[in-house]
């Protein structure tokens, strides 16, 4: 009896996942390669919508990756040393700074975007470039990097490792490079995975910050949904999936092997 209840509840859960996650995704991708969605699959398969999307949005897609990688670079350069400093220093000030860094998680992206526009919108060269979007993405993704690196720091007693490297004569930068970063690698990888994913998928902040010349993937997606025929919008979704899924899988594998290495202690 009990086993049956468990079986049916699992079955129901699986059906729900399929109905609300997999079916819509598959349908929308299918729509992207259907000649005429309103006439259904019978109308035949075509790649013309995909090609159309590629022609219209190739630069948008490329820009999205550039923005994601720049965001990653900044969060690495700023976030990893910041996490190190916050962890080693400790104390009330570090806690306060950590809270401030984490704040953007609780604030709607629209509000962050508005604040950025109010503060820096008048620097028109900056405002018009993709760097303005990078800045927004850094604000939004930095806490994920800092948190994930700090988590690994507290699991490997980084303070004593640092002290032991210093007792052997290593200057701060040297021990950061030789001891801290290699041992924090699983956390850094996990953080990177999150930053890239979040940056590629970020919409509401980016929507506020973009100009017609600095659209990113999700903004382009909204644009095509609003102004193109349904098949084109669906083809866009297909392109989005094709772009992002291999990347996610690759980084997941990378983070997994890194995680295992870190776990062997």
């Amino acid at each position: 009896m009990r086993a049956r209840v468990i079986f049916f509840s699992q079955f129901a859960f699986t059906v729900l996942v399929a109905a609300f996650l997999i079916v819509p995704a598959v349908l929308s991708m299918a729509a992207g390669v259907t000649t005429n969605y309103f006439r259904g699959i019978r109308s035949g398969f075509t790649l013309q919508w995909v090609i159309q999307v590629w022609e219209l949005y190739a630069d948008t897609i490329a820009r999205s990756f550039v923005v994601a990688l720049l965001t990653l670079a900044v969060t690495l350069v700023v976030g990893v040393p910041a996490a190190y400093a916050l962890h080693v220093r400790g104390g009330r000030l570090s806690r306060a700074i950590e809270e401030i860094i984490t704040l953007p998680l609780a604030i709607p992206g629209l509000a962050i975007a508005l604040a950025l526009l109010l503060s820096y919108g008048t620097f028109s060269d900056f405002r018009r470039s993709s760097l303005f979007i990078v800045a927004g993405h850094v604000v939004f993704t930095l806490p994920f990097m800092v948190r994930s690196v700090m988590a690994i720091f507290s699991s490997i007693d980084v303070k004593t490792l640092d002290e032991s490297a210093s007792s052997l004569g290593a200057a701060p930068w040297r021990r950061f490079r030789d001891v801290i970063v290699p041992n924090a690698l699983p956390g850094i990888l996990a953080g990177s995975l999150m930053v890239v994913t979040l940056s590629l998928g970020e919409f509401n902040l980016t929507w506020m910050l973009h100009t017609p010349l600095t659209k990113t993937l999700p903004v382009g997606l909204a644009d095509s949904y609003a102004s193109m025929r349904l098949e084109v919008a669906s083809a866009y979704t297909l392109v989005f999936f094709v772009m992002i899924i291999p990347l996610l899988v690759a980084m997941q594998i990378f983070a997994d092997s890194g995680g295992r290495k870190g776990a062997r202690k």
Partner: protein
Amino acid sequence: MTALHGVAVRVESCAKTFTDGTHALEPITLDIARGETLVFLGPSGCGKTTMLRIIAGLERPDAGGRVLFNGSDVTKVPIEQRNVGMVFQSYALFPNMNVADNVGYGLKIRGVGHTERKVRIAELVALTGIEGLEQRRIDQLSGGQRQRVALARAVAARPSVLLLDEPLTALDAALRDRLRFELDRLLRALGITTVYVTHDQAEAMALADRVVVMRKGAIAQIGTPRDIYFTPANRFVAEFVGAANLVEARATNGTLTLPGGQLHIADAALTGEVIAMIRPESITVVAAESASLSGRVERISFVGDRQRLAVSGATQKTLMIDTLNTLDIKIGENIGLKVDPAIIRVLPREPQ
């Protein structure tokens, strides 16, 4: 053949108050001779680790305190420029490097070439008995092996002073005993100035040229292991180092009047209330009739190499006595007790 190397260390009125207001150390002045092994011994929270970290350069003493290596002031020199070797309680080996790379890290930092480094690593691996483990990852080592790697790594670059923070505490008892002897041999062979921190008095005795017994951030006594054991300066040292009977009694012209009889002490002129310390193993069991002090055996615990008796009636508190493991004795028996007057230590009175 023990070529002494390392520096003489002087700690000058070093106190430490942490930012949260805790006084970890009262001002302490101390000289450590070149090549000497000095052990800081004390219960947790006595400030011994803080002292070690001040010498290492991981903590700054409060204003006015100075640390000198061979007479030159290193108080403001950061640890990475002090040329110290340090072994941490957790060993803090680098998980991202194998054994050889851990041992060679200090040499690499100092720019020692690859070939020379290899030779020195081989030397240290042999010295610490970890041959064959060079390519192992740290997580593939046992506790004892990690301890040896940590030691090899700390001495690889020929530091001026070797600092060890409870290096054996993380190991189980049997291994600890074995490594204690090994460590002693190694420290003698290296002849390096060594500062060692422990809460284990047996470890302190076995390794130290001099022991610094610490209590509540201050020095309770400095001396050789024998000094500390046989002539403790106060009650705290007597009780912390080894087992001790503290007998409170009235002395009249060098004789203690006790519930179970009398006991002579070395100072024949001493009169007044005193606390006398008698080590359990310095009491001899004799026939009750002929003895000037006697008592009744309450408990016997046989521990193999000796047996410990708890005797009541002789002194106000129960007296602990270590006797030969072959001595035939029964609970309830009346026994006579004899103590060499020279070995009884009269402690100064102090407010408790």
